């Protein structure tokens, strides 16, 4: 057959491989810098994110109130930590650019502040995070003020229990109560937050929910709900529900499959192409090669093979969940280029004896090495290629889970990688370079 299924070519300045927070952040930073960008990668894992954007939430098993101070002390003790290789001002700017972008696209976030926000979890535990979506902001405020508040949960929604939240927050928040209601139009069987959120995009559903909320809220002026306040227009959905109930309403994250991650994924998939990013979501790059004049990414979508030609590449493929790293019985490998992975000596050393050990597992600190320009290194300590940069949690020497720093590492290192890539691209373009381009050494 001729025609369909033939090889398609894209050309761009910067190719971003990976569609997690790091990958999307990189595309946003590139857009802001007028760099032509193509982004490729399965966005599945992005759907697991909670909506909170952590910078540093914990250090050495202790809760962190001031992430910037924690960052300063991290610099002393863990200089190889990826966050320590980006200066604090850049990290601040990166968060600001990232949240501003989301806000401009209709997903408002609190601006990065000088301290962490004490945010709620569905277990009724608390978590330190830097930025929260506007839909979730009232929760931490209400907690701090011990305001009378009712947590509403839903018949048929598994794994979100108002009773659990209230039981575990009682000591700190005695004014917290809980109620269970049915979701309009979903009387029987299991219901998913995603389905509820989409239903709330419709005015009629909002009106019915508002009536149900009013019926049980009593004197409480605040209502906490699982994260279901719309998928595409959460800020409007919340505002509308607040208007209809005359109460302040906030969301609490839920366990996967949860709305905030899907929201982010759909937003990015929609907005980035509108802004000029060549986004090829849901497909994995199968090969990356470098020629004299650029890099070539090979991949395949349902329609057929694709080649992306780029002047520079950012590798933001994540860890095991997103496929950037692969754990084999014989050792951990980097998936795309087989870059050397810094890792524990043997498989027996990957995990500690206790799963919830606060120190975290050594395997979490495995990852690839980069030079000061965030270029991945080969086994001999040279950079793999002058056109290749890396960002996100694929980088070694960090435990984003125990450090509560996943978004922070993703956003900060993406910023750094894009800055370095920009410098490289500028150097290539300039006939008479003012400053020499970063050298690969």
């Amino acid at each position, binding site marked *: 057959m001729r025609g369909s299924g033939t090889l398609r070519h894209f050309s761009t300045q910067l190719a971003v491989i990976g569609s997690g927070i790091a990958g999307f952040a990189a595309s946003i930073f590139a857009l802001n810098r007028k760099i032509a960008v193509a982004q490729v990668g399965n966005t599945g894992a992005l759907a697991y994110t909670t909506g909170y954007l952590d910078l540093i939430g914990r250090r050495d098993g202790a809760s962190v109130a001031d992430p910037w101070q924690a960052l300063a002390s991290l610099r002393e003790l863990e200089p190889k930590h990826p966050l320590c290789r980006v200066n604090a001002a850049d990290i601040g700017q990166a968060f600001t650019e990232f949240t501003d972008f989301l806000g401009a696209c209709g997903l408002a976030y609190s601006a990065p502040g000088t301290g962490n926000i004490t945010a709620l979890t569905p277990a009724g*535990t608390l978590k330190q995070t830097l930025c929260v979506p506007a839909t979730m902001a009232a929760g931490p405020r209400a907690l701090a003020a011990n305001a009378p508040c009712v947590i509403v949960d839903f018949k048929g929604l598994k794994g979100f229990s108002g009773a659990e939240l209230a*039981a575990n927050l009682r000591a700190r928040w005695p004014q917290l109560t809980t109620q269970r209601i049915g979701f309009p139009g979903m009387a029987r069987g299991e219901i998913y937050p995603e389905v509820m959120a989409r239903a709330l995009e419709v005015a009629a559903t909002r009106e019915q929910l508002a009536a149900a909320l009013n019926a049980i809220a009593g004197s409480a002026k605040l209502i906490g709900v699982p994260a279901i306040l719309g998928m595409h227009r959460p800020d409007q959905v919340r505002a509308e529900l607040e208007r209809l109930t005359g109460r302040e309403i906030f969301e609490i994250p839920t366990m996967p499959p949860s709305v905030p991650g899907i929201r982010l994924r759909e937003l990015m998939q929609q907005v980035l192409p509108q802004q000029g990013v060549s986004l090829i979501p849901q497909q994995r790059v199968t090969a990356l090669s470098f020629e004299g004049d650029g890099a070539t990414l090979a991949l395949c979508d349902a329609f057929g093979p694709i080649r992306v030609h780029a002047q520079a590449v950012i590798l933001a493929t994540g860890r095991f969940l997103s496929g950037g790293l692969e754990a084999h019985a014989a050792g951990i490998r980097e998936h795309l280029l087989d870059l050397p992975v810094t890792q524990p000596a043997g498989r027996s050393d990957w995990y500690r004896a206790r799963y919830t050990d606060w120190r975290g597992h050594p395997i979490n600190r495995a990852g690839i090495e980069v030079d000061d320009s965030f270029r991945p290194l080969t086994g001999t300590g040279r950079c793999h290629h002058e056109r290749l940069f890396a960002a996100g949690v694929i980088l070694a020497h960090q435990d984003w889970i125990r450090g509560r720093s996943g978004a922070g590492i993703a956003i900060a290192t993406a910023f750094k990688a894009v800055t370095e890539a920009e410098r490289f691209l500028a150097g290539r373009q300039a006939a008479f370079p003012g400053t020499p381009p970063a050298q690969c050494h």
Partner: protein
Amino acid sequence: MSSDASTLETEVLIIGGGVTGAGVMRDLALRGIHSLLIDKRDLCAGASGGNHGLLHSGARYVSTDPDAAIECRKENALLKRLAPQCIETAGGLFVAVEGDDPQFADRFPALCRHAGIECEELAPAEARRLEPVLSEKLFKAYRVPDATIDPFHLAMLNVDHARLLNGSFYRPHTELLRFEIAAGEIRAAICHDHLHQRQLTIRARQFVNAGGAWAMNIARLAGCTDVHLLYSKGTILVSNDRLAQRVINRLRPPGDGDILVPGGTVSLLGTTSTRVEDLEQLAPTAEEIDRNIREGAAMIPALAGARYIRAFSRVRPLLQTSGTTDRAATRGFALLDHASQGMDNFCTITGGKLTTFRLMAEKAVDLVARRLGNDRAGLTATLPLPDDAASSWADPAAAQKRWHHDRDPDDMILCECEMVPQSAIEQVFANSPDIEKERTIELIALRTRAGKGPCQGSFCGIRIGSYLYDSGYYRDATGLAHMRDFLDERFKGQRSVIWGPQAAQMELAEALHCGLLGLDTLEDE
């Protein structure tokens, strides 16, 4: 029974909640004798739960231990008749692959015949048709009447039946600390109740040590030094799904990685055998895992790339006889009447194997009943084991089908991997008055299939916890601690096989449990 909650009385105290202890409990009850069964952890926490779940045809022992083979053959036939609800008559194959000793393979049918075990030769092509996972390098295959048995289900049904018969009861998390001994008799067992963190005195007329690998230590608490056990550590892997329909044995003298046993919806690959001195803190080593897979893959190549979700190690108690290797050591059992040690109301039943648990229990109860002046004959060889609905949630071959057939969309599935709904939890609690007050997620997981699938409890642990908060059982942070403990416990079994998709699963789990919920920081809350 005493009204003082810290002192309990019974006719017979059975120490050790493995299948043997549970079997002793039922056998006693059938003879009208009241008993109390205790375990320092919970049912089948030792070798009873830490084996393949193979109901031996006996064929595995024809070359090394013909007597044990005959014993197995008889008990196999008996249990298939009396406890069919715990058994899958999967059938078994013995297969030889390139490199295996053809002479051993040729001798095998005669050895089986000698032990009275059915053995039918299959053409290699026929064997591969029956089990497509078998290696192309297979050159000899025999069919034997191996089956599988679910030890948890079996133990639960034995305990339940005893309770129904005469109110005998079972206490988990009750650890024996010492005996009160006077005038050549044990008067009481002083125990620690781990759930309530208090001491408990149990008075009884007879004491049965069914401690399995711990039997030697328990006997010594009573000053008895006539129990001699060797400890053999065995490591077994559990695959994500069922790779073969039948039990597949390597046709060679027993060795590492030579048996793959279906366990309902999964397969179990084993077993390494290493002599150890220590009974506690056992964990599979990477070397043992790799060895099992390497050896197993010679027989079933797919084992090399399979997704494993768990691996565990347990100690098998082997009766010590001089000059033999662990593999050749007797798989028979021993009943030790400690009268010779000056202890007239104490005995130890140990050794043996899952397949012969009923016989072991019967022999022990014959002795205990005689001592109590009870001359009623044992009934376990003739009376079928009654069924009950709650226990079948533990059955890996049936549990997942129940929800689908009941078709109640409001009965939320809490464990998606194994399809365990809310109603299963309610039934488990309703059926277990002894433990009613002790709802832990671990307890639910032991009595249902919850947490046994690929996510290993990472999602259902949270959903079950939330459900128990909703139902008012948890009212404070205890529920979170139970979630954490459950996940920590599941992790022990996962730790040595986290690679491939399991590493992705673990990253997602940690991000959820620690990154979001903060279960790694409960202490400072």
